[in-house]
């Protein structure tokens, strides 16, 4: 068994893992009951799914062609940006009350999505006029 054979098997395994987690993520999107729980499914695709696929791509590039480390960059950018989009989606959910109402913040704090600003209230008055 040569090194290329081993690499081929490794690539196959990585592709299967990535495909499996992407599939589970999609199933979760369809199956889970409300908008907040549905948010949990894509985080899996974003981490394990894409991670395993990129690992396969990297192994392939290093065995059969000229390898590059760009996949690490893709991974890093995904890991930095994915939580932000998830955060925005959950903020929208809280704002539109399309999920279970979150518990009150402790002491005299308010969740920042639910803060009512004075200038917003003023604008609303203008609109109704």
């Amino acid at each position: 068994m040569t090194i290329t054979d081993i690499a081929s098997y490794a690539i196959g395994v990585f592709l299967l893992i990535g495909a499996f987690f992407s599939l589970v993520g999609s199933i979760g999107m369809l199956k889970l009951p409300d908008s907040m729980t549905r948010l949990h499914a894509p985080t899996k695709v974003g981490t394990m799914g894409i991670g395993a696929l990129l690992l396969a791509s990297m192994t392939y590039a290093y065995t059969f062609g000229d390898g590059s480390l760009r996949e690490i960059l893709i991974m890093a950018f995904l890991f930095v940006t994915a939580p932000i989009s998830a955060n925005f989606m959950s903020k929208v959910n809280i704002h539109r009350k399309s999920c279970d109402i979150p518990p009150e913040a402790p002491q005299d704090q308010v969740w920042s999505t639910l803060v009512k600003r004075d200038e917003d209230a003023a604008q609303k008055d203008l609109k109704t006029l």
Partner: protein
Amino acid sequence: MTRAFNWLFPHPFLTVLLAIVWILLQGQFTAGMAVFGVILGIIIPRATANWWPDRPHGFKLGRMMAYMVLVIWDILVANVQVAWIILTRRNSKLRPAWIVIPLDLRTPEAITVLAGTITLTPGTVSADISNNGRSLLVHALDAPDPDAVRDEIKQRYESRLKEIFV
């Protein structure tokens, strides 16, 4: 001397990071590219330094590396757990929960890293922060015992982050 150094490199770690990202983006390593990356790494932090006056000064790179290894391991484990929950658990038996985490961290950078970690580990999503930044709202996909999840996040991630950003 140190003042000149601090003026030229307001954020030495960012300088190194930008240079590395630039070289990785090029795909091949040549001396010219490395020099240009370092130049970018000096210009960008210098030009933007005015917009982040309260950046944390202590940052332990070695501990951050160890933290990243821990997080990647947790992501692997939690992925398998959540995949198992999605494939086998019925929706009616799912126990989603909101969890309120009181924060001991104060710097925005550290809280951002903590929130990102919570979202990246499948099964928990950080949803909101309170208006004065003292507590974090987290949604868990399946948490029979929300207090246990809160304690685990606090002692597994937050205590480590407290030592990284000092």
